[in-house]
Each structure stands twice: as structure tokens, then as C-alpha cells.
């Protein structure tokens, strides 16, 4: 028995490294702890190492260094079929030469369950994904969304405690994807299973997960619940990767507690919340979400610094207005405002003053 550092830990990665060619590390020093019942999403651009992590957990790749533990037991040397982890693949991987019922029955057969138990479990799993009448069909006769449900049912039918999903919704159209997002989370919560979900779609990550691990360059950049990830990114990559974001480059003038004064490159001063800057004189990039940018005087706190901005473009988007501004040399500064009664539609060319709550503006690494 390997000793566990955290008694709540169900899945643990400890100093895990992975290299395919012996020259570059695809995963660099990964540490991750997952309690039972959590829905964790690994989010990141392609090549960031998220899928490799999933494959190591599933047992299809071996860690070059480090320890992966499942329920306190190191699984580095346990072959995939003994790990008891359910998995949903990107292309569903439904066996084309078997019917749907045979597909679902397969994990039960290899576990040597009796025929009547198998049939009962298959039926329950099919009903769970509302596909009760499709047992005798072949995978090729189903639509993408239906195949997706079957793949999900197959990964759940043998009642694993941990289910891995590798971009399972990537091939579906938008509407279906949103419906399945909801269904997957509902199933996961109802069954109380632990889910590790890999995606490069940030909306999916934000709407489905308890926590999101943002991957880049083989490292976890931030591991946090979706709201924190969006509202309090801890570095520039996360701020850029999650949601829409405006950045302005500058130098920290002064830090006092939760407030930093940043001098932008054109000399103007703004308020920001210091995140990973520690001292005056450091170069920084401040990050502010488009919907937190305000131009109406009554919404900017007294004494906050304001910036002069020129309206470049006004786009009507129905529920919101999207105004592109030129601010401190950045021509792609976007302000989003709700289409509320009496909301002004700005005309391109006009000059306005913009500002924000200091806690909405994050001074991050340059």
C-alpha cells in the first residue's frame, strides 16, 4: 500500500512526467488530486498534454516518471483491463460488428457475469440513456448523438467508479452538444461517479465541471472551479484562454494590499488587482473581461482611474452590444454591454471615458 497524502484523494497524480521520444516532455511534473465524486475537466489547446494524462490514467500510456494512484493504490503497473475505469472515446469506438446490446454486454461478458444479470444491466443502462429500443441495431444505423449515448451507456454499464471521457462531444453539432453536456453532468451526479473529462472547448469545461484544470505546455496552469477560473485567472495564459479578454501592457507603479497602480505603456494610470506581480517596477499585463468594462459614470467607483477610448466599431448582437475600442494603443479592446432599456448605442469615432472596478482588472505576468 502506498501512503496517500490526502485521505480524500481518489485519483492522484504525483510528479508525473511523460516523454514519447526521450527528448521532449509532453507532461512536465503533473500533480493533481481528485476526490471521489468530482467532475474534473482537463482543458487546454491541442498538444498541451491533457489527452496524454488521460491515456496514462486509463493505462494506454505509461508514465515516464512519477506515480499515478487510484483509491490509494499505485496503478502504474496495472494493465488497463484491471483498472476498472470506464472510458468514452472521441469517435465513440462502438464495435461495428456487434449490435448495441452486444456492445453493452461486452464488459459484462468479460467479467463473466451470467446471462440474466447481463440482460438486466444492459436494459437498465439503455433505459438510463433513453435508448431502450435500440438494442438490436448496429452502431452504423445510429446517428452521432445516439452513438454518443450508447458509448456513454457502455462506459457506465459495468458500474465503474471512475469514468474518463476524451472529447466525447467533439463530433456533434452545437445543439446536440449542449443537450448532451447537460445529460452527462446529470448522469454523473445521479450515479455519484468521478469523471475526468478532456476537452478543448472552454464552454463545455465551464458548464459541466466541478473543477477545471487548464493545461498548457505540459503543465497545469490553473486548477479551480469554473467561476474562479473565469473571474480570477492566475496567469496570463488562463486569462487569454478562458473566455474573451482584453489585455493592456504596462509596468507596476505601486502595490498596496489588494490594489496595484499600473502605468500603461502610453503613460496612463489604471487600478488593478495584483495577481502574480509582487513589486513595483515589474512588467505586467492587465486583463479585464469585456463585460466588466464600463463607460457610464455612475457605474465607475469614485476615485478610480479612467482611460480615454475611441469607439472604432459598434456591433449589434441582439442580447448584447459589442463595441470595439482603441485604448492605450490596443485597437482590439472590446466592451460588451447588455441590451438594457435606454442603453446608448455608441457611434464610431466618438471619444469616451472607460473604467472598471479595480477587483475586475487583474495584473498578471507579462
Amino acid at each position, binding site marked *: 500500500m502506498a501512503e496517500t497524502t490526502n485521505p480524500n484523494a481518489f485519483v492522484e497524480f504525483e510528479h508525473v512526467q511523460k516523454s514519447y521520444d526521450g527528448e521532449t516532455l509532453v507532461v512536465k511534473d503533473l500533480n493533481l488530486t481528485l476526490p471521489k465524486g468530482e467532475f474534473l475537466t482537463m482543458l487546454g489547446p491541442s498538444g498541451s498534454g491533457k489527452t496524454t494524462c488521460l491515456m496514462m490514467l486509463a493505462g*494506454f500510456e505509461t508514465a515516464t516518471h512519477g506515480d499515478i494512484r487510484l483509491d490509494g493504490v499505485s496503478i502504474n503497473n496495472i*494493465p*488497463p483491463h484491471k483498472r476498472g475505469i470506464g*472510458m468514452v472515446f472521441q*469517435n465513440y469506438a462502438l464495435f461495428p460488428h456487434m449490435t448495441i446490446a452486444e456492445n453493452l454486454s461486452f464488459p459484462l461478458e*468479460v467479467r463473466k457475469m451470467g446471462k440474466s444479470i447481463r440482460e438486466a444491466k444492459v436494459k437498465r443502462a439503455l433505459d438510463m440513456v433513453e435508448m431502450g429500443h435500440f438494442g438490436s441495431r448496429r452502431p452504423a444505423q445510429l446517428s452521432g448523438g445516439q452513438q454518443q449515448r450508447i458509448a456513454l451507456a457502455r462506459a457506465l454499464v459495468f458500474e465503474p467508479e471512475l469514468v474518463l471521457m476524451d472529447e466525447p462531444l467533439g463530433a456533434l453539432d452545437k445543439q446536440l452538444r449542449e443537450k448532451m453536456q447537460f445529460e452527462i453532468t446529470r448522469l454523473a451526479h445521479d450515479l455519484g461517479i468521478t469523471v475526468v473529462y478532456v476537452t478543448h472547448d472552454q464552454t463545455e469545461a465551464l458548464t459541466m465541471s466541478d473543477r477545471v484544470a487548464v493545461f498548457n505546455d505540459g503543465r497545469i496552469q490553473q486548477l479551480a472551479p469554473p467561476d474562479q477560473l473565469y473571474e480570477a485567472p492566475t496567469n496570463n495564459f488562463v486569462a487569454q484562454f478562458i473566455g474573451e479578454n482584453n489585455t493592456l501592457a504596462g509596468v507596476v507603479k505601486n502595490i498596496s494590499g489588494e490594489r496595484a497602480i499600473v502605468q500603461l505603456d502610453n503613460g496612463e494610470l489604471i487600478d488593478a488587482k495584483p495577481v502574480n506581480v509582487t513589486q513595483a517596477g515589474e512588467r505586467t499585463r492587465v486583463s479585464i473581461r469585456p463585460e466588466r468594462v464600463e463607460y457610464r459614470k455612475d457605474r465607475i467607483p469614485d476615485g478610480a482611474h479612467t482611460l480615454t477610448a475611441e469607439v472604432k466599431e459598434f456591433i449589434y448582437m441582439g442580447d448584447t452590444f459589442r463595441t470595439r475600442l482603441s485604448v492605450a494603443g490596443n485597437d482590439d479592446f472590446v466592451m460588451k454591454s447588455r441590451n438594457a432599456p435606454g442603453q446608448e448605442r455608441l457611434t464610431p469615432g466618438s471619444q469616451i471615458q472607460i473604467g472598471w472596478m479595480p477587483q475586475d482588472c487583474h495584473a498578471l505576468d507579462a
Partner: protein
Amino acid sequence: MSDASLDAPLAGQSSALTTANGQPLKQALMHAQAHAKRRAFYLVAPLLAFIVITFIVPIGQMLHRSVYNPGFSLHTNVSTGVETPLMTNLKVWFKENPDGTEPDEAAFAALAKDLLVLREVKAAGQAGTRINYELSGSRSMFTKAARRAKRLEPPYKEAILDLDKDWSDPALWRVMRDATSPYTMNFYLAALDRTKDETGSVTKVPENRQVYVKLFQRTLFLSILITFLCFVLAYPVAHLLATLPLSKSNLLMILVLLPFWTSLLVRTTSWMVLLQGQGVVNDTLVGMGLLDDGNRLQMMYNQLGTVISMTHILLPFMILPLYSVMRPINPSYVRAARSLGATSWTAFRRIYFPQTLPGIGAGALLVFILSVGYYITPALVGGADGQLISNLIAFHMQQSLNWSLAAALAALLLGGILILYWLYDRLVGIDNLKLG
């Protein structure tokens, strides 16, 4: 209201739709497509003509020859093209007297007349050969008797028996009765080691002359063995080819195809170099001390030589269909099976292997059909007991010149293959075949 009036005539005349100007729709469609169809036909016409002239007509002729041999009933003068019916008098006698009648004076008189005709048109050799196919040693009786035909005097029975006592042999008369008709199934009987006895019932030929059935069996057995060996050897190679990264698999593919591009004769002779008594394999084994110099392995001029070299030569025909089936199989199927709890063996057996079945079927059918009709390699390395049926067909085509028997053997081979093909279609389904 207007909708209804539009629908009504359509529903009423659904069997004979017409175009806007009243022409039947089918005719109009045919007319519209005629030009394109004609053009398509002109494009395939050369190939069609080629196939008909070089393939269908010869095969038809061959099949005809297997049941038709006019050696004892019609003579064609090669230079003038004059056709002379032979054995007309004997034919009449056979018609008047039923099977098994002992030849009387009238029969010998008819024979004497016919021998005279044979002498005139110099057809004794031809007629004798035809009888000789079924009763060896009888050719010379005809040539001898024809030479003396003019001097024959009644009573003919005595006169002819004086020439050769064997003229009274009931078997000879039995064969002559059959041979007066050019159409016969006797070559098929011979190809199955059967013959007709004096009374006309079908019996087996004496054991020491039964060759063809045994050879068919050996051909079938060796072909199955070679197909199986090819499958066993090709499966891992095809899998490797399908799973390696493209740059490496391309190199390996060239190695697979390289022998394919080399002349068959070169490959076979290189196997001779390797396998013969003083060949590379034996020399190496002796040199390593694994084999005594006196006990060199006999790997050639027997079945082993045929099996080894044919397996090698036919291997690409198994690898390529397997590869083409394996390449598109997504590795996530096996991974999915593993994650669902299957051992790697179970995942292979239940998930991977069934998906490669169309390739196995195609490869096996291809190798089997090719090896059933293989000729050159067994002829060169097969020796006496490594010969296949095609070698015997060639023998009858080139040496014994019994083309009818060769044709009958070939037709049986063709029929056998067609039956196997039909069986395959019933069991696996021909549309499941994937050749590449």
C-alpha cells in the same frame, strides 16, 4: 381544389408516365441516355473484344474439347480441308446390335471396310490414337491392320484375328462403340480414374493406374496448407504494416512488394539455390555442425519444396488484402475493449480479429485459387510427389497430346473452384470481400 386536380391524373397513370409532349417517360429516358450509354460501350469495347477473343472463346473451345473428340469418326485433311467420315460401317453395325453383343462376321466385315477407308485417307494413326487413349497398346493394331487392309479376304473375322488376336477383346469393341460418336463423357470418367467395362457400366480403373483423383486430393490439400501458412505468416506482417507510422510502413511495404515485382522464374530458381542438397540452407546447417554432411535435408523435388516456395510466392496476395482491411481499423476499438475489462487476447479475439475477416476471406480465396492452378513452381521444385493437377494438365497438353483429357481435367478444376467460390459466397458473402 387546384391541388386535387393536379394530383388526380398523376395517381391514375402512375404505371405509364409521359413527358410533357406525351412521349412515354421510359422511352424518353432511354433516348436521353442512349448517347452516353453508347459512348460508354465504345470505351469498353476494345477490352470486351479482347476478353472474348483471348479468354471466353478459348475456354469455350476447351470445354467443348473435353466432351468432343472426332478421332474415330471424322478425318480432316490438313492441306485440302476435305472431311471424310470414318468407321461408318462399324457405326451401322453398332447401331443394329446392342451393347455387349459378341462381334460376328458382319462386324468384322464392317471393320475391314472401314480399315480400307483409314488406309486411303491415312487416318489409321488418328483413329488408333483415339482408341489408345482408353485402351493402351491398341494404336499399333490399327496401323498394322490398315496397312494390310487390301489383302484382307473373307471370312474377315478369321483374317483380322490372324493379324492380332486382341481384335476379339470385348474391351476393344466396347471402346470402339463409344468412340464412333465424337461426343463422349469418357474423358471426364478418365479424369476421375473411372472407365467403362465391357458391359458399359462405370468402374474404377485398376489401382496402379489411379492417378487423377489422388492428384486432385493432393492439390486440394497442398493449396489449403499453403493458404493456411500464408495466413499465419501474413497476419502479423499486415498488422505491423497497418500500425507502424507511415514512413516506416512504406519501407516495409516495399520489402513486401519487392519479390512481387521480381520474375516468378527468378524467385523459383532462387528457392532452388537455397533448398537443394548442396544449397545455401543445407550448407549453412552442415557448416554450423547441426547436420551431418551425409544427412543433408531433402527440401526440394518433393512436396516440401513446393509448399515452401509457393507460400513465399503467394504471400503478398495474402498480405495486401489483410493490410487494406487493417489499416482503417481505429486503434481505439481495441483500447475501448481493454478499458471495458478485456485482456489483450480477448480484445484481439472478440474485437480486432472479427473486423479483419473480410481481408482474411479475400486473401485466402485469392491464395487458394492461385495455388490450385499453380504450374511453374511445382514443375520446377516439386519433383515427383510435389506435382499438382495443373502439371498433369500441362503434361497432357504438351507430351501425351491427349487434349481432351487435359480439357476434362481443367474443366473439373474450374468447376471445383466455382463450387468453392459459391460456398464462400454462401458462408461469408462475396460483398464482404475486400481486395485492396
